[in-house]
């Protein structure tokens, strides 16, 4: 090999290496983009919602659990709540998958978001829902803190309604994390602190369901009752 051709060979090898690295990075972004890109057809926020490949969804969810990615993804997921969603079942599946991969280190932040009066309601509700959907027993104490946090003395009746609703979701979510005895003890502590009739009712419904899972869950009970009220 001549000296000129050897230099040419080194340049080609370096270029090939750059190409390989670029291709690898492109692949990484491709998998994320499939998950997160907004849909142009439906107005739905994320194209990933229509992704029918659960394996791919699962892999994608795993890519957003780093500290670096959590905040921007959380913000966009919160914004998506206020959008038309043509495939809500897939969205829920995707969010549950994401929640199950959220590291424990983010749990305190989710609690902080949930109780932050300066954040918008969608973000706060998402924070509670994600804690519940983690399915991890470590989430229980955070949910209990949210559920039993005193409702601030707000003058706006709707703001009060929201605070109650948020805590009701936290109570229901306690029913989905941890061992039955832990859940029951937690629900009893929440009920003891609460003087809100709706929250106490929620705590007891959830506890009854934890004690006997063959009962209708509070969510099923709500759906049945609301189904009788409206025209369906």
């Amino acid at each position, binding site marked *: 090999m001549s000296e000129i051709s050897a230099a040419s060979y080194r340049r080609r090898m370096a270029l090939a290496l750059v*190409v390989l690295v670029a291709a690898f990075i492109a692949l990484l972004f491709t998998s994320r983009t499939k998950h997160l890109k907004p849909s142009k057809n439906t107005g739905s926020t994320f194209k990933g919602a229509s992704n029918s490949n659960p394996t791919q969804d699962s892999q994608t969810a795993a890519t957003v659990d780093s500290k670096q990615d959590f905040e921007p993804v959380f913000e966009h997921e919160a914004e998506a709540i206020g959008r038309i969603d043509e495939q809500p079942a897939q969205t829920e599946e995707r969010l549950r998958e994401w929640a199950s991969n959220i590291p424990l280190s983010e749990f305190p932040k989710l609690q902080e978001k949930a109780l932050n009066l300066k954040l918008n309601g969608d973000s706060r509700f998402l924070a509670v829902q994600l804690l519940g959907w983690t399915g991890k027993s470590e989430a229980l104490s955070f949910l209990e803190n949210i559920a039993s946090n005193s409702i601030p003395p707000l003058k*706006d009746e709707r703001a009060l309604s929201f605070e109650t609703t948020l805590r009701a979701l936290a109570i229901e979510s306690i029913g989905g994390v941890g061992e039955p005895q832990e859940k029951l003890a937690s629900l009893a502590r929440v009920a003891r602190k609460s003087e809100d009739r709706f929250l*106490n009712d929620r705590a007891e419904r959830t506890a009854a369901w934890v004690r006997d899972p063959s009962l209708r869950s509070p969510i099923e009970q709500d759906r049945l009752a609301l189904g009788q009220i409206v025209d369906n």
Partner: protein
Amino acid sequence: MIRSFFFAVTAMFACTALAADLPVFDKEFSCFNKVDADRYVSDFNINVKSFGGMELCDSKLDTKKLFNDLSLVEQGAFDVAPQNVFIRNYVASAEYYKWLKQQTRGMNRGNDIPHATAYNSWGYFTMQDGWATLSTLGRVGVVIHEARHTEGYRHIPCTHGPYEGSSNDGCDKDYEYGGSHAVEMEYYGRVVTAGRNFHPIYKSMARLMAMGRSNMMFNKSPIQVREVLTALDKDGRPAIVDEGKVTVRDGLTVAPGRLKRASHGASLFYGKMTYAIDLYSFRDQNANMEDAYSYYKLLFLDKGQGPDPMKDFEEVDIGTRRFAVGIKNDGTISSYQFAQGKWGPFANQNANAVSILTTSPAGEHGVFVLMNDGSIYRYDALKMTYGAPLTQRWPKELAAITTVNGQMISLSTDGRVSSFQEKAWSEFLPLKGVSISQIVSSPIYDAFVVEK
């Protein structure tokens, strides 16, 4: 070489382009369609300037929030299911946008009535600061709520909840009235049960908002708990009677106290504490469960009642208001002051006071005090004062009386249970032949009763 270079450039470009496609980096990700925005401004006569100026992309600005809300109203779709006896159809499910447009003469943003979320003045809606900080569902609910006011529906004073006693009328009589709260609740209910293209968390919020507000904003709630009869046999073993079916449940490992209705079901009262009866399933025999869910929990909290056991205690709902009333051993009586988080002063001492009743012998629901001579006094738990005695005294042969889903059921001192049907008492067949020591009606948390 050229080919390699071309590939490298293409790959790098692709990488950059893909990064830009990520919504978190995409400035266009959340932008609203200008044509639709202009149409909304025109359809609803939106004072764009008051909302902060035209904004299509930044969701933190109120104009963009309003556009989002209106697009949800316009594009939200509902499955059409067979109609049934509960049909209200205050607003046709396919016509929310059209209806909203008809009821809206203009939309402004202001903060001239800060304690309100929004108000409607002759079809002109003014969204206050509180509106801007709500969730998307909350904002959409407000818009729908306000639109109903244009049709002439007004609120009345609340008999309970955050607006009770307020000079601002905030409640509707009931769901049947079809006012702003009913229309709003119908929307939430539809989102939950028939919504086709709503985000799952939006639906989750709608479900809890509907259930929570049904209890707060109607003076007569459309959704109530279902009731069963709880009975203790002569050995203290509990059973529930649900629509004629008897199911035996676990007893406690201690001697039975006095059977009480509690907001969660039923409990046994021991003066200083209560144990809950599990109405749903069998439990570990050795695990007596303290009642932490109902207001019987007040017994083991220091809320100003002093260290001594209570002679009697009742948690009772009258209308949509809940009361906790206690009699001490010295015959003084008081009710718990929820707003202050403590008992009112124990007063009106009467050494003859035996127990608190929540159903009179005639079947009237309320708070009554039974005296040891059989006389019965009405007790106003709100004012904490005794009223006049009832004309009817407590019959000697009557051990207990209660109402279950509106039906009167009594227990005689010889252990027989009767029900009041067709203007006469007759044997209560589900418990025929069983010697019963105590009965009470209990709410059961496996379903709601929806009023027709």
